[in-house]
């Protein structure tokens, strides 16, 4: 048993950390999210060059064959930098699905992801699904060798900037059946695809995807027809592990920024960091951060367990995420006073991002329930 990082992992950590320091400071980030596209292709190209985009992929796809801990190292640093480029939907989720199903699509698309040519949008939620992955109304109806897609996928991460969309669609059964769900890869520019684009409140790009008689072929089906739910669950658990790492970066930063700010900020003739009540609040931020780190480690190390064990642990990770980002975030804003409310302060953006991480893949309550169903 050890919690040591490999040299390679330390190297990745250092190089991203340096990149953020030198090329992705707060002002740069704010410019990027205010831009029309809402992300930076240059940054993405740099990521490709640094090798980040090929980390999790098998060597047969020209990947680096990395594992969950490697992703954790990267995501923590992306979290610290509060980076908005679509690493999660493209590499972790899109790439995750493709790695899972293999086949021709994986052979074609993964190398394009690794080189930074391809951005993937990932959509498994719907307007009425809340966080239930098995609730799929949008349909794919078989028609000879092709499928006709109809329906709406909600809050598809990366959709407005994606080349390809990976979406869950119903090929059989009823709305909330576990069986009969399939994954398809759909060209973002295909006929019948409309994307209602928006920024998320924390500055990422996403959109609702509306499918109206979109034609795809059976080659666009990922994996076995109707059997996608276990894959979706596994990949979203990988997503949870990834954002848990991001959250640990976010919590660390919020704690750091808050201790620094309170040391600077003078009220009643003294730095407010001298007030015991605020000190204890910051101690509790630290504790929540440490717990987040512990659980992020645990989650990364349990991703390959039996599905029941994996789901139980990853739900516990997500519950911790909900608690940690909320406590650290609300405390950070409170201790920054009015300043923390303004968009000029980095801490506000960590707080907003952390809040969205709690929503993503199901909030703490949702995962408490999943945990309890397995306990």
């Amino acid at each position, binding site marked *: 048993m050890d919690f040591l990082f490999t040299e390679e992992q330390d190297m990745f950590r250092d190089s991203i950390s340096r990149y953020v320091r030198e090329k992705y400071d707060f002002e740069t980030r704010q410019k990027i999210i205010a831009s029309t596209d809402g992300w930076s292709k240059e940054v993405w190209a740099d990521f490709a060059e640094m090798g980040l985009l090929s980390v999790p992929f098998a060597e047969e796809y020209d990947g680096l064959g990395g594992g969950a801990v490697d992703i954790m190292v990267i995501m923590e640093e992306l979290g610290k930098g509060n980076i908005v480029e679509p690493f999660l939907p493209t590499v972790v989720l899109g790439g995750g699905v493709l790695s899972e199903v293999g086949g021709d699509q994986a052979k074609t698309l993964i190398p394009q992801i690794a080189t930074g040519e391809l951005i993937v949008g990932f959509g498994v939620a719907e307007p009425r699904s809340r966080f239930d992955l098995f609730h799929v109304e949008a349909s794919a109806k078989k028609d000879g060798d092709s499928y006709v897609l109809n329906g709406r996928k909600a*809050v598809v991460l990366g959709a407005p900037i994606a080349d390809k969309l990976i979406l869950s669609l119903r090929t059989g059964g009823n709305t909330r059946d576990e069986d009969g769900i399939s994954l398809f890869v759909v060209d973002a520019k295909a006929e019948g695809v409309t994307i209602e684009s928006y920024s998320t409140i924390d500055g990422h790009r996403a959109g609702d995807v509306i499918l109206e008689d979109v034609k795809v072929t059976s080659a666009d089906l990922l994996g076995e027809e109707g059997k996608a739910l276990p894959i979706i669950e596994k990949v979203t658990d990988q997503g949870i592990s990834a954002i848990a790492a991001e959250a640990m970066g976010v919590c660390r930063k919020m704690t750091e920024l808050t201790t620094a700010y309170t040391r600077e900020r003078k*009220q009643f003739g003294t730095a407010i960091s001298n007030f015991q009540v605020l000190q204890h609040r910051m101690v509790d931020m630290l504790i929540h951060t440490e717990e987040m780190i512990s659980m992020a480690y645990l989650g990364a190390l349990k991703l390959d367990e039996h599905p029941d064990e994996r789901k139980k642990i990853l739900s516990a990770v997500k519950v911790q995420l909900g608690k940690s980002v909320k406590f650290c975030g609300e405390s950070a804003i409170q201790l920054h006073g009015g300043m923390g409310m303004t968009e000029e302060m980095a801490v506000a953006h960590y707080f907003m991002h952390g809040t969205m991480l709690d929503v993503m893949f199901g909030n703490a309550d949702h995962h408490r329930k999943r945990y309890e169903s397995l306990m």
Partner: protein
Amino acid sequence: MDLAFTKENEEFRQEIRDFLDENWPEEKRTGEVTEFGRDEYIAWHKKLAAKGWVAPSWPKEYGGPGWTPTQKYIFAEEMAKAETFNVLPFNIGMVGPVIYTFANEEQKKRFLPATLNCDIWWCQGYSEPGSGSDLASLRTKAVRDGDHYVVNGSKTWTTLAQHADWIFCLVKTDSEAKAQESISFLLIDMKTPGITVRPIITMGGDHEVNEVFLEDVRVPVENLIGEENKGWTYAKFLLMHERSGIAGTHVCKKALSRLREVASDKSLYGDAPILMDDAEFRRKVSEIEMDLMALEYTELRALAGEEAGKGPGAESSILKIRGTELQQRISHLAVEVAGYYAMPFQRGLTGNETPSGPEHTVDAAAGYFNKRKTSIYGGSNEIQRNIIAKAILGL
């Protein structure tokens, strides 16, 4: 001890309801408005003023309706139930009482009717960069030059300064003396040369607050309220004043009932179970409801104390703490109700497009972010606890 309202009070309540039914139609009752138009707001204010109801806490001689505390409570409750705009606190709760209490006759004549009627839109020049809860560290200076003061400095967190005609400012008139003896209370026309307003955009894209820069702003000495260097007294008076309604119970109740409606609306959930049937969600709702009950009756007890002649004291700090905690909890519950649709930034920047998610999701996250302010402003909740420790527990 009796919970029932008197027959007179019930008649009074009916009168309020009738007025609101007539003047604040159903379609306006859409939940809390964080951004609203200046003109729309003023129109509503003037309507209330015309009715004589705009300043429940003011003495009758200055335009108040002469209500009992219970009547004020009923009025506030009905206004909240109908989800009307709040009355502009800067005019009614802040500068107005300072003027009728400390200003000279000429100033009263000049400012009170316009303040009551919202012909002047006031904003508050208290906080400065570097002085938040600690007013004693103000640095904006006013130097006497003939029959003018020349004011230099800057104010921050100035709510709705972008709409304001006038600002009431705390300024240092004696740089040598300690804070309590060197601050004066000055009224300044926002159109005076040398004043610049810079928006502060807060999380979620709100433009509620501003910085106000004052550069060689010349203010006639007749705009000084009370005595020079006695502003500290007036400022403290203002901070203690108008604490009624500070708990925001009725607004909370309304917001919670809106969330319950949404969470019970089958059309939003289709084949999925409605959120209101989720045990944990129900638990959160019930806990907030019960806590609101405790808050409401704590407020009513304070009110009864006031009615019995005890002025509002440090108890209002309790109401402020619990009230803001509840507002914040409800605002987070809205994020939970919104689910994935809490994520899109669906207002402001994107103009008037139709939001992707249901109506109730549009302000969910922004509302949660915005409500963080409630435990910060008006004396942070930490400051409130300090006040209680000292004033009630004697620690």
